[in-house]
């Protein structure tokens, strides 16, 4: 029988292509596994990839094309928040379900779009684990928040600022910067003068490493450095920052070491990916991988392959994936949003260890961070 087409929009070229590529490979891995097990309803699934180049207008064109030319009954993918924000209303209006796997802009699932689903947590939820860690272990009094001026940076730093208020932590300084600065010393010199207990940074990988390296150069000694996901969990961060990366915490959505009970296949996915592509994967890949399974699951359950029926099937999703349990619920202003816990990891001896929440921790959190001068 004819294969069922599923549309995927991803940044396959342009500045975000690195992650687009990881996600594309993860989609393909999942697809092969599903098709090898017989596909859905005796039919194979075929993925139609469209390159959104990381730009919203292109992303929108891509989704339009998938829906009206390729006639796909469901679209998934969506890496950049801006692309997702531009493409979601199209899906909503053309009444074809769009299962977002990465784009984290909060308001995409706050507009009541009937045909839009999201698997990953929203940007404002990223600091959840950090928050509970601060409540439970590291009871600091003052914080400084630094963030890159991007969609993700602006929204998750705002969320963390509110968390601080809630926890009674005084925010001494909150400042954005445009990604790619050569020299963070002006910023860090100010930070040093404030002498905070906590430095929270939402930065992409090499800004992250420059921040840490230059904090070392300036001998800035807070009780802890925390990264708000994004760059701090990537191997490049550790490679570039070297020993300065030690002790740095970061929020993350996923690690391969999560328990199989809630995250079936997480480790397997991680290992298979590495074996197959000879390169690393991380939470973005897991999101894509899981997303393929969610779509396939809905296609299995759907009454027919019309977009309407597929949407209804998606809305009824309740399953566990390598990225965690998936169930599209409504809470707060949000609709059809999956709710997942987040984690805190820490660089210890050059390795990324999960340290919080306790029940999934692979190592105990090292806190407080020793002064630079006291390190080897």
């Amino acid at each position: 029988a004819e294969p069922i087409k599923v549309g995927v929009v991803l940044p396959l070229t342009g500045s975000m292509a690195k992650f687009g590529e990881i996600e594309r490979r993860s989609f393909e891995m999942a697809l092969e596994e599903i098709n090898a097990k017989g596909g859905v309803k005796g039919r194979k699934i075929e993925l139609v990839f469209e390159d959104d180049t990381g730009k919203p207008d292109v992303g929108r064109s891509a989704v339009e094309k998938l829906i009206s030319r390729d006639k796909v009954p469901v679209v998934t993918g969506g890496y950049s928040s801006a692309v997702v924000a531009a493409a979601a209303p199209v899906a909503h209006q053309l009444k074809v379900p769009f299962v977002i796997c990465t784009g984290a802009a909060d308001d995409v699932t706050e507009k009541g779009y009937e045909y839009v689903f999201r698997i990953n947590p929203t940007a404002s939820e990223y600091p959840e684990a950090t928050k509970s860690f601060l409540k439970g272990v590291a009871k600091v009094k003052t914080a400084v928040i630094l963030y890159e001026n991007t969609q993700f940076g602006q929204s998750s730093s705002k969320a963390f600022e509110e968390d601080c208020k809630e926890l009674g932590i005084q925010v001494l300084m909150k400042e954005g910067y445009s990604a790619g600065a050569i020299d963070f010393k002006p910023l860090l010199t100010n930070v040093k003068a404030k002498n905070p207990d906590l430095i929270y940074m939402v930065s992409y990988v090499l800004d992250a490493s420059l921040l840490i390296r230059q904090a070392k150069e300036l001998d800035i000694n807070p009780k802890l450095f925390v990264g708000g996901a994004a760059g701090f969990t990537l191997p490049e961060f550790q490679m570039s920052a070297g020993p300065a990366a030690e002790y740095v915490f970061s929020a993350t959505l996923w690690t391969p070491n999560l328990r199989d009970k809630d995250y079936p296949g997480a480790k397997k996915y991680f290992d298979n990916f590495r074996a197959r592509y000879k390169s690393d994967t991380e939470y973005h890949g897991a999101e894509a991988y899981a997303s393929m399974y969610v779509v396939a699951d809905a296609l299995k359950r759907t009454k027919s392959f019309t977009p309407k029926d597929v949407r209804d099937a998606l809305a009824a999703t309740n399953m566990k994936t390598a990225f965690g349990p998936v169930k599209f619920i409504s809470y707060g202003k949000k609709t059809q949003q999956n709710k997942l816990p987040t984690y805190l990891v820490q660089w210890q001896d050059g390795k990324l260890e999960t340290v919080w929440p306790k029940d999934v921790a692979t190592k105990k959190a090292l806190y407080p961070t020793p002064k630079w001068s006291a390190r080897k």
Partner: protein
Amino acid sequence: MDVFLQILVAGFLKGGLYALIGIGMTLIMGVMGIINLAHGQLMMVAMYVTFVLHSFFGVDPYLSLFVAMPALFLLGVVIQKYLLNPLIKAETILPENQVLMTVGIGMVLTEVIRFIFKSDYKSVTTSYTGATFFLGSISFSWALVVAFGIAVAFTVAMFFFLIKTDLGRSIRATAQDKDAAILMGVNTRRITVITFGLGTALVACAGTLLVPVYYVFPDLGGPFTAKAFIITILGGLGSTVGAIFGGVTLGLAESLGATYLGMEYEDIVGLTIFVLVLLFLPGGFKRLTKV
């Protein structure tokens, strides 16, 4: 006070790197009248050369200057010879075609690099990457101090080259009146090619020196092109000494702005100075220093 001094030092040192970027641009733009919107992209290519030499052959970034600079010189030569020189002959309504050509070249360079290296961020970590020394409580980055020294050396060298040698004079003459230069026996096509190559080699030097303290990725060119413009306009077109002033001024202004206005204003500070200089000091520092 410490904050202020630290910022001054940081700005000054960054300014040295900026100056190197600016000298290349001032040659290409001021001396030859080519507006080069691919300047930063050429620097990016040089940074990848250094990156490759380091990560595959273990070559120290300072040594790779001896490869990156000639390599980029050649690249500049090819660009000028086969892409820019043909435009000079074509009759067009807008001289700005040439500008657009460099935009195209910039895109191609970025994409070729992306094609080869992906969009990944790469970094080169050396023993001196984070190395600092302290004077009082003020920290100095070794790598930036070295870069500053090299920038000053190149500026002085370029200055004398342009003023005192026949080749340097021919470069300036070609810029002012191409046909007359031909009549004087100057092979102007060769001159333009050499000049563009030199400008590119200089920015390659800046890129290489930046590698140990920064990182590389394909899209890095654009912002540096913008900085190169600001520096060149600040310093005065064609003025090598001006480039040093322009670079240091921009470095200082950015640092001070970032500290006292906020880091997110860093770029706006540079742009504002740029517009102000365009309007109120056309000709840049060259107008004041006369060199």
